């Protein structure tokens, strides 16, 4: 028999909003049940209200870790990408969400962490340390990140250049990055709108890439973001 291996939760000493905002957060039974209910509801509502169509689902890796990147037009985007994944990934799925929006108040932070399992990205003060923590988590434990490298939602429907954060997380690792293109979410729920409209949404999932051959430095980061940006643009033209 092996020695007993009692490993406490990494976020044991944190409480309340500090715990919800932490990259070290680990989930319990209540969060698992909440996510099962949330993603089941999302899959159903996207299928019924937005006639969700998914192309290239076979390109998704069979098991974590991997990263989904896509163009960003709407708060629906993360929901749409999350709904394309099997429900069994619900506790390993981490949408990276704007900290100043989704983690601003303790109540919002509790919802974003417990139900969405989101991890905060503080856009105005995102530091190398935070990116390093996200990168470590991706490498050390099975995780699926949903990331929008444009850094914010488009205001006119056109795609903006990708930032290098995705490169800082994945350059020099064997973690697959899956480019995706979202169509229809801008029309369904644009940034200025408060209520989603009934509009068809299409997701195109491309071939995953790995970047283990690239150095984890600025040139490698830029190459990662450039390659993924061109992949997403190519999917848009399909």
């Amino acid at each position, binding site marked *: 028999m092996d020695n007993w291996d*009692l490993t406490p939760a990494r976020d044991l000493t944190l409480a309340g909003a500090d715990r919800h905002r932490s990259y070290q957060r*680990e989930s319990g*039974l209540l969060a698992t049940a909440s996510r099962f209910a949330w993603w089941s509801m999302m899959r159903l509502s996207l299928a019924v209200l937005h006639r969700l169509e998914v192309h290239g689902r076979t390109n998704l890796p069979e098991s974590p870790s991997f990263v989904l990147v896509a163009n960003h037009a709407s708060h629906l985007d993360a929901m749409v990408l999350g709904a394309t994944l099997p429900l069994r990934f619900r506790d390993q799925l981490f949408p990276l969400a704007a900290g100043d929006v989704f983690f601003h108040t303790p109540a919002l932070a509790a919802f974003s962490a417990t139900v969405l399992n989101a991890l905060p990205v503080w856009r105005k003060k995102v530091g190398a340390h935070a990116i390093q923590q996200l990168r470590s988590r991706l490498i050390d434990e099975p995780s699926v990140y949903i990331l929008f490298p444009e850094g914010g939602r488009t205001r006119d429907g056109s795609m903006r250049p990708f930032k290098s954060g995705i490169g800082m997380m994945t350059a020099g690792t064997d973690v697959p990055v899956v480019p995706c293109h979202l169509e229809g979410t801008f029309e369904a729920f644009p940034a200025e709108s408060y209520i989603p409209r009934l509009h068809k949404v299409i997701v195109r999932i491309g071939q995953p890439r790995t970047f283990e051959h690239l150095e984890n430095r600025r040139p490698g980061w830029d190459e990662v973001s450039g390659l993924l940006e061109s992949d997403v643009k190519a999917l848009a033209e399909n």
Partner: protein
Amino acid sequence: MAHPLSVTIVVGVVAGLAVSGACILALRRRISDDVYHAAFRRWRSWCWLVGVIFLPVLAGALPTMLAVMVLSLLCFREYARATGLFREKTICAVVSLGILLVAFAAVDHWQDDRLFFALGPLVGALIVVVSIPSDRPRGFIQRVALGVLGFALLGFSLGYISNMANVVHLGETHTDYRPLVLLLITAVELNDMIASLINRTLGRRPFLPETSPQKTWAGAIGAVVITTALVTAAGGWLFAGTPVAHPGWLVGLGLLTSVLGQLGELTLSSIKRDVGVKDVGATLPGHGGLLDRFDGLVLVPPAVYHYLSLALGEAGPLGSEAPFRILTGSWGG
């Protein structure tokens, strides 16, 4: 009409909080900011705790049972996160279900408390059974043992407080559960505070240095002496006219409360040392987790329940004389 002991305990605790708050304020300029803020945080947490504990007990049997259920669930959550059991979702679901069933069994006194007593072995067996299909024999004993221990201490044992709240017949004198439950909780917390005070002022020889370095023989013995005296005095008042009013039974009740209260704290200390954490949570500023505060309670309720049932003889056992079915509204017995 509330029992005078209930009134005395509530007034005493509230007065104690008021005096300690005034002392902290009075010492504001004589102590450093850090010490002042730490003392104030701890005092504020105590105020919240007293409200959260006393209000349901005073409000009625159902609020008491629901509060115990919530306390059990929160304490189990902390225990599971500290030991790593929270990663075993199926076992945690079974223990949580067991806690809900314990609350139901107490609330409705289902089958004249037979369900309550059956839940100990049944939930334990269910934890074993649900651990089999995952087909992971490595670590099986560890997972199952952690689940069974968690339910035994935090579900079943704490659930006895709910079962006591369904006591409507304590001998011939009165039918109020409140003084008994308030006495039990207050005595256990006082026991901890007295031991802690003596450890800091008079304590020399460590009691169990590997398990809890700050506990001393002086603190342990002092707490036993003072808590036993307090419980004996209060018990004489509460159980007047019943067989428990005999000095032998009363001293036994005091000893049981103090010794098992300290053993409960040492149980949690052992768990914390084993997993290498200082506190099991950060819910209560200045205290750590809820379980850090209520660890003294984990062994006391079942022992007191069965001790009183034995002592009361024909006037008892507790909870089976004329229990009330809160959900279905009919009287058992």
